[in-house]
């Protein structure tokens, strides 16, 4: 099979899987939020509301695609696609499992995998900040300015929390990192790093309690206030795909990827991967149902004065320990 055909087939399958998981992650979030607030959640479309994503998609597609008069038409139309593109392209290098012979299940295996994920993730902010700016009205602008500041601030601590793992694994390739966790998961030696990553990941994906970017009570809907119909849907997809991405990364870096815990190897590695990612997704929804939004200055202070020094300290301690114990 020629390489391009192989990549194409893999991409189509992966795209299908990711979009389906987005749809049901969204439904699961609404269900779980509902249960935590003593509501049943969506249950009208199909049995247990299982067809709700299809109904939502149909609704969004049929809505009118509005462009405000004050908007910059080109960037306004382009921004959702930037968001979606960066959200999806990360999946080109995320491995989901490995066959017995050590062949990784991924579209591409890049040596600098974790760095490439950081790079693509850092581009994700453009969709939000260009979209907010191009809307030509004040709430989206405020949302986009907030998102820029927030994502740059938390990206630093996030990158530093990666480095501890990289020092322990001695490689930047994702399957190398997972293989290095065959004995124990990095969440044990890198507990601080893991906590920092989980917190910064919530901030990077603009989820509650760090959803200052789309704070409904202050900014209407933040950067996507003016968007409607399918373009809003694209932002929506991008947000959930980003959630899936950070869950995948957390699984790969700190929770052993597709390694089975306690030698429960009769369940295939891919299933373990999916279970771990699902646990993370649940955790994010759980956080959203529990914690109130941070005030903006406290968000910044937390990022710069607590997380960043802590991440640096964690990095230095890890480096010293690894240097002395070999």
């Amino acid at each position: 099979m020629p390489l391009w055909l192989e990549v194409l087939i893999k991409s189509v399958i992966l795209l299908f899987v990711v979009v389906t998981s987005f749809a049901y992650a969204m439904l699961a979030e609404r269900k779980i939020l509902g249960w935590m607030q003593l509501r049943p959640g969506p249950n009208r479309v199909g049995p247990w509301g299982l067809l709700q994503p299809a109904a939502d998609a149909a609704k969004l597609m049929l809505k009118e695609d509005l462009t405000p008069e004050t908007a910059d038409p080109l960037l306004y139309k382009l921004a959702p696609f930037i968001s979606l593109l960066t959200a999806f392209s990360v999946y080109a290098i995320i491995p989901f499992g490995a066959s017995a012979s050590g062949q990784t299940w991924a579209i591409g295996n890049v040596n600098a995998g974790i760095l490439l994920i950081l790079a693509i993730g850092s581009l994700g902010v453009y969709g939000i900040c260009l979209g907010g700016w191009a809307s030509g009205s004040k709430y989206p602008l405020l949302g986009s300015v907030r998102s820029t500041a927030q994502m740059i601030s938390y990206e630093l601590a996030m990158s530093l929390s990666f480095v501890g793992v990289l020092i322990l694994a001695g490689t930047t390739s994702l399957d190398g990192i997972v293989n290095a966790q065959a004995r124990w998961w990095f969440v044990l030696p890198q507990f601080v790093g893991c906590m920092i990553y989980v917190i910064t990941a919530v901030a990077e994906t603009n989820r509650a309690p760090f959803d200052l970017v789309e704070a409904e009570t202050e900014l209407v809907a933040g950067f996507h206030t003016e968007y409607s119909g399918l373009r809003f849907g694209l932002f929506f997809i991008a947000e959930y795909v980003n959630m899936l991405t950070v869950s995948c990364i957390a699984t790969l870096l700190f929770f052993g990827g597709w390694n089975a815990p306690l030698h429960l190897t009769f369940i295939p590695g891919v299933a373990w991967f999916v279970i771990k990612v699902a646990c993370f997704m649940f955790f994010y929804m759980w956080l959203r149902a529990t914690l109130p939004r941070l005030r903006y200055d406290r968000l910044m202070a937390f990022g710069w004065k607590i997380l960043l020094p802590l991440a640096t300290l964690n990095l230095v301690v890890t480096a010293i320990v690894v240097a002395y114990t070999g």
Partner: protein
Amino acid sequence: MASRKHLYNPGAILKGLSITFGFMFRKRPTIPYPSLKKQHSPRFHGLHELRRYADGKERCIGCELCSSVCPANAITVIGAENSPDDRRSPGERYAARYEIDELRCIFCGMCEEACPTDAIVLTPRFEMADYRRGSFIYDKDRLLVPPDAGVGMPPDDRPGGIPGDLGRVAEIKSTTDVDTGYSATWRGEILKTQHEGLAILKKPEAQE
């Protein structure tokens, strides 16, 4: 420093998380409305109804007190003399036309308090949604209960209270209407679904 202590207190966050987690498994009070209907109290102020006596005669005597007391000007009554060979009501007069604009109505219940013969009462029915504004003007055809629909006791026979007393209006409501129920189809599907809902309600509580 107190604020900082609370802001970065992981114990408090964990406690909050445990509370929300616990709530996931609590019994949810939601009633899945269109499929399961809860009965309102008999004294609920819902859709109006014009009553009859046991002999089938209309209670309304066309006095227009309801119309004059109505704070929203929603009621129009045009009375007429009863003809000797076709007596609609026991009194001299009856309502030739009786219309309530349910879009204007504020469901305050003053009409039923004002009515000297307990002819107009507010029922617990509340599902009146429609697609046209015109269909919210309920005329006598839709307000008057059918002759075979069951009746309350005639006012004079009832024990205690003065006519128009709230307690007695509640009593007259509770004698007929939804609980004993009439399977009349004159108000169409609305009533039917309400009865189905009631049937479900009477079973042991089926929570979703």
